């Protein structure tokens, strides 16, 4: 940017398995956002490759990546990023506009998605009429609507009080339980400890990749 090349991330390599919930941690300027933009297909690495389902997305055109983004990535932002002039159901349905889904089906699926996050009763409300926690739930419903491979959450609780933040994290846990792959970018250690796997970045380098052993292994718990 502005003609000065900055190497934000270097020699970072890791895999994300289906159904995983993963926290990417690191202080400001550690390269978290760049990493998120690359996973979210908004940015491309100057070197190296990013594989999404065995396809190197670094080779794809801008248009192809947009199409893939609509179908495979669900974004959740710190500041919700809902369109202020559209009501909840229209906001949730928005990604489907870019998947070529007709209006009737968009609304039906948006309502299902709103129901999944417990927000169906707010379907006709506009963002300004909703609390922060409610807006974030709407944003999560929007992220889920196209059944993405990965939900990418950037500081999803950063703008919320701790109780509401806890509710949002509980929602992510529930989604993960249901099989949804989730990547959370955060600098809050409290959030990271809730995720089984944590990747730590510092100055653009991957410094650790730890998977906590569950206190009660899932397989045992299930049997």
């Amino acid at each position, binding site marked *: 940017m502005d003609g000065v090349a900055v190497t934000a991330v270097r020699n970072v390599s890791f895999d994300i398995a289906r159904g995983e919930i993963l926290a990417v941690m690191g202080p400001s300027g550690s390269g978290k956002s760049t990493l998120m*933009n690359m996973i*979210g297909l*908004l*940015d491309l690495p100057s070197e190296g490759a990013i594989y999404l389902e065995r396809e190197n997305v670094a080779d794809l055109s*801008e*248009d192809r990546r*947009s*199409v893939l*983004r*609509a*179908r495979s990535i669900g*974004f959740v*932002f710190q500041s919700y*990023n809902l*369109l202020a*002039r*559209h009501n909840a159901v229209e906001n949730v349905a*928005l*990604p489907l*506009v*870019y*998947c*070529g889904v007709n*209006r009737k089906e968009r609304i039906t699926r948006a309502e299902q998605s709103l129901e999944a996050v417990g927000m169906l009763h707010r379907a006709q409300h506009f963002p300004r009429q909703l609390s922060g926690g409610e807006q974030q739930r709407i944003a999560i419903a*929007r992220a889920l609507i*196209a059944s993405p491979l990965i939900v990418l959450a950037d500081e999803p609780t950063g703008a919320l009080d701790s109780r509401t933040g806890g509710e949002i994290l509980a929602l992510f846990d529930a989604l993960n339980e249901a099989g949804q792959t989730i990547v959370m970018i955060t600098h809050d250690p409290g959030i990271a400890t809730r995720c089984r796997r944590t990747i730590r970045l510092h100055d653009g380098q991957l410094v650790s990749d730890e998977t906590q052993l569950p206190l009660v292994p899932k397989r045992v718990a299930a049997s």
Partner: protein
Amino acid sequence: MTVLQGFQIALHALRLNPLRSFLTMLGIVIGVASIVTVFAIGAGAQLRLQEQIRSIGANVLMITPGAVYQGGVRLKEGTKLTMTESDVQAILEQIPEVQAAAGSIAGTAQTIHESKNWNTTINGTTTGHFMVRDWQLSSGRFFSGPEETGAGKVVILGSTVARELFAPGDDPIGAQIRIMNVPLEVVGVLDRKGPAQDDVAFVPLSTAKLRFLGSASGINRDSVAYIIAKVAADGQMAGARSEIESLLRQRHRIPVGQEDDFKVQDPAAAMEAQQGAIRTVALLLVAIASVSLLVGGISIMNVMIVSVTERTREIGIRRALGGRMRDIRLQFICEALVLCLLGGAIGVVGGIALSMTVARMAGWITSVDSEAIGLALVFSIATGLVFGFYPAHKASKLSPIEALKTE
């Protein structure tokens, strides 16, 4: 994203800010309205002229008095009636191309029938006049020979005069009307020929001279104010014209090198030239009106650029949610198109209303044709595409990462 979805998004965005949307399209509204109005007035003027050309009749030459010298003083054209009834006879007899000819004198007078009266043109002429102008009767008859020679007290009415003097259903034929206290019998009513032509009452030339108009300004008692002559075919017009000119010079004893005391004109040709001039003026006015369309387009571009800047974050969100560059471009082009089309539609309606108002207030004939409407709408679509493209392109080129960072 489909074009239809693009229009849906555009309509949604424009509805959020109705006042701004309206003000943005105002330039287009005014531009299109003025184009439609100017076209309507231009087409109306041409229609009127065509009607006049038709009303004169085909292949007609008109001979009017020219400037004359009297004691070394050059008088205004038409001051002296230099043509005579014997000139008419000579033209008829000696020029084979001329099928019919008639001399006329005219003035205005009040016509009275019972309690109704009407001010109109009184034209003293012969039956040949109606032959020259291909003018048929709707009822009654033309003047008889004895009436023409013997100053018969008869009159043939134009349809406007008949309508003004007689109640609907009242047959004017055989009725008595008075002109300057002379009672006259209505023997005929003419077909309609056009609003400007129908307001007239014809009496025999001899009657007009004897009873109404006299021949005060004539060189002799035989004088007529003008002569009209019908030429057999279009191709013979030029030949007939020069033959009439040399015949009249000879008859009026005009020496070589001296100016004619008459003028031979082809009114249809003159009007056709006038028609060309009207077309040119109309095109010029359309060009001026198009400038306001250009200004309207620039104002749309201006507002769209501001709108793109204001909605940078929205663009970032749409990109992050899977919107392609071309989807963003389509969305903003659709907005510009909707503004222009809506503005164009309002402009067409406004233009039709305006030209109807002009028609009523100024009494002009106006004619709104589908061609003008189509042209105006094509212009506004083109304006939308041309001036919407740059802001839309700018929006599509925004980096989604940067756009998402914008507050």
